[in-house]
């Protein structure tokens, strides 16, 4: 177990350097000058532009900029953006929003997705099974943008039930609509995956043996089938949580949630290199850590994995 964990941690470090450099280089290569657009519609005087460029070492070559950035990063300093605001502080103010949104969406996916999958899997080839299949495919095929705007119009404008923008009403009110919209897209996958896994397990030899032994339905399904079907679903759900934490750009944008996804989008738009790399680094860490946790969990659920 220890060796396994250490091996994963070393991989993590390598991926970390590779990806931060790739992203730094990508932002560096974007055409146009981020400083000249700082003034919005007004022209900045060339002297001001030059001073800001020097302040941020923007005239240095890529490798020198990256090494400087890395140096600061290793001491835990994410630097400041082109307007002089601390990147770490901006990120810190946005994580709570993204985490609340992601967790709410994730819980909805787990409860409804796994629930639907279980029902469908246990009632294989009935009309319920087919109904779940059609329903999940139908809603997942509506573009997220359309779904979000429709939800806003129905629940916000017509029914006046829920707020449609911002987080001023706090959790859960402000997060219900965006989290539901966000959850719908992982829902189909979770449901299908759970169903498939349950169907597989139900038809495996050991379950047949359990039936033959005369165990109760509740015990066979509740303990043995569920636990053995859980591995692929759990892997998917953990990766999905990582994706939710970093990928809700569209949802955060449409619902005006000041989260990390929105910050990332805005920062790319204005070529805010330091912020983009800072967010990307955080997201990579989350992704690597969640997949590490998944592997460890899986090895707990299925002893065969850890005795490889």
């Amino acid at each position, binding site marked *: 177990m220890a060796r396994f964990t250490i091996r994963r941690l070393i991989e993590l470090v390598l991926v970390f350097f590779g990806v931060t450099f790739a992203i730094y280089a990508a932002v560096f290569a974007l055409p146009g000058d981020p400083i000249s657009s700082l003034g919005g519609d007004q*022209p900045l005087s060339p002297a*001001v532009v030059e001073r800001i460029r020097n302040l941020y070492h923007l005239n240095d070559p890529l490798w020198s900029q990256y090494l400087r950035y890395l140096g600061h990063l290793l001491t835990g300093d994410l630097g400041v953006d082109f307007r002089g605001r601390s990147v770490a502080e901006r990120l810190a103010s946005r994580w709570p929003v993204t985490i609340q949104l992601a967790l709410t969406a994730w819980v909805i996916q787990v409860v409804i997705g796994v629930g639907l999958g279980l029902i469908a899997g246990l009632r294989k080839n009935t009309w319920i099974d087919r109904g779940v299949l059609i329903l999940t495919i139908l809603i997942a095929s509506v573009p997220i943008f359309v779904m979000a705007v429709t939800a806003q119009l129905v629940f916000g404008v017509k029914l006046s039930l829920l707020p449609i923008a911002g987080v001023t009403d706090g959790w859960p009110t402000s997060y219900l609509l965006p989290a539901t919209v966000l959850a719908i897209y992982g829902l189909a996958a979770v449901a299908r995956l759970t169903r498939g896994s349950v169907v597989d397990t139900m038809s495996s030899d050991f379950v047949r043996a359990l039936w033959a032994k005369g165990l109760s339905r509740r015990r066979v399904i509740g303990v043995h089938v569920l636990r053995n079907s859980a591995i692929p679903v759990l892997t998917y759900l953990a990766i999905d949580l990582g994706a939710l934490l970093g990928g809700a750009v569209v949802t955060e944008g449409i619902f005006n949630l000041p989260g990390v996804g*929105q910050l990332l989008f805005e920062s790319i738009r204005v070529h805010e290199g330091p912020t983009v790399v800072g967010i990307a680094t955080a997201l990579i860490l989350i992704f690597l850590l969640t997949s590490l946790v998944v592997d460890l969990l899986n090895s707990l659920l299925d002893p065969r994995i850890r005795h490889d």
Partner: protein
Amino acid sequence: MKRAAAVLLTATVALGGCSGGGGSGSAEGATKSVSFAVSDPVTLNPGRQTIAFSQVKELFSSLTFVKSDGSLTYLNAESVKSSDAVHWTVKLRPGWTFHNGEKVTAESYVKAWNTVAYGPNAWENSGQLVNIAGYDALNPAKGKSTTTQLSGLKVVDDLTFTVTLKSPDGQFPVQLSQAQSGFFPLPEAAYKDFDAFGKQPIGNGPFQMVGSYAENEPMTVKRYDAYQGPKPTVDEIVFKPYTDMTTAYTDVQAGNTDILFVPAARMAQVKKDFGDRAYVFQGLGMNYLGLPLWDKRYQDVRVRQAISMAIDRQAVSNVIYGGIWEPATALTPPGEPGTPKDLCGELCTFNPTKAKQLLAEAGGFSGKMEIRYPGGSGLDDLYNAYANQLRQNLGIKDVTATPTTDFPEFQKLRNDKKLSGPYFSRWGALYASQQNTLRSFYTKAGGCVNCIPYYTPQVEQLLAKADAQVDPQKAIEGYVDVQKAILKDFPAPPMFFEKYTYATSDRIAKLAEGAGSLELENTTLVDN
């Protein structure tokens, strides 16, 4: 959206006699509060803000003030006078105070302007002060500046200071109006910590901060009781930040926010959605179709004229902007005093037959016409419409409209002259004078943010001549001469006078129009 916000000129206007009439008291109970959708302001320091116009307008008062009819009045200043357009004397109104009780004096202005102009500070609005004598010494091209004071500023007494300009400029008083926040005064308290001041500014305006500004959180300002200017009709304004203004639009529909500047993407439907709660105000935005004057195919003036006459501006406006944008008939918007009506004449009038004929006379057009515009800014429909019009009405087979990834890339391509076809060009003036629009498009000093660019010595000379006039009427004649000279060359077709559209929730009875903007503080609520 950011661009739109950048040209907002919300303002305090002289209510004059109205404030005496019964409706102005708010003592009868409920606070009259309105909320306004904005993009995140980043900073509220008037010397640095570039997208917080509507906020700093309420927190600070400018020396002069342009009303919605374009006329210039005084606000914090009692007078701004000069006989030669170079030496100006500014007299302040007595009794004005900052929100912390500090007196607004000549020193409050002079020290603030020195700080804004001082090169090493690198403040974004520094460029507004470029014509004050001594600016170059504070911003040397190389090395460090040896002084921290503008040589052109002198405090005479508590309420008087003089300004010496580098070159004569009769429009100086207009430049001191409500959207040029680089000219706002700063209190002593500001100099202790500018970061803190940017979050919780202490101004001389009709409203003061309640708490401090935090990124992406609603921000509230309340009426400042000791304010010496015209009394606003509302007691409180809440600025609600949105990253996507189409979301704000839906939120106003749902009644969660009161007022919004309608984004281009919603203009076609705003009258249907909001009925008489949609307002169309005169803007100071001028929209051109830039042409690549460095490309051989566009060097014959007849080609440029043909392109202008081949586009049915009204039809484009009807389809994309619900008919709200007005086809341009001059080189400056009508909100700028003295802009002549129909100066462009038949060159700006849709006439496909004449257009084809002109193009044929010029030898036709070879190859592909590639229209470029900045992507991600909701401009796609407009430029696709131009492409369709040019394809159909000029008979050029291959016309495309392609977005760049974003604004910085677009600006780089244009500045490097790498565009080979018509392109995006617009400017929202910061003060209501033809000077502002003409300088931005037609002088190098304008900085070419979204310019054409077309620079000639003749235009520079004519502009300088008009600038030198102290008499507003003579200045206007001068600027019209500039326009006439440019139209002879016809470097780029003027396309639209932009209108600024607002929509409100049903809590609002009436919006007050400002100069190219909205007077947020004079909003009338329904329950009044």
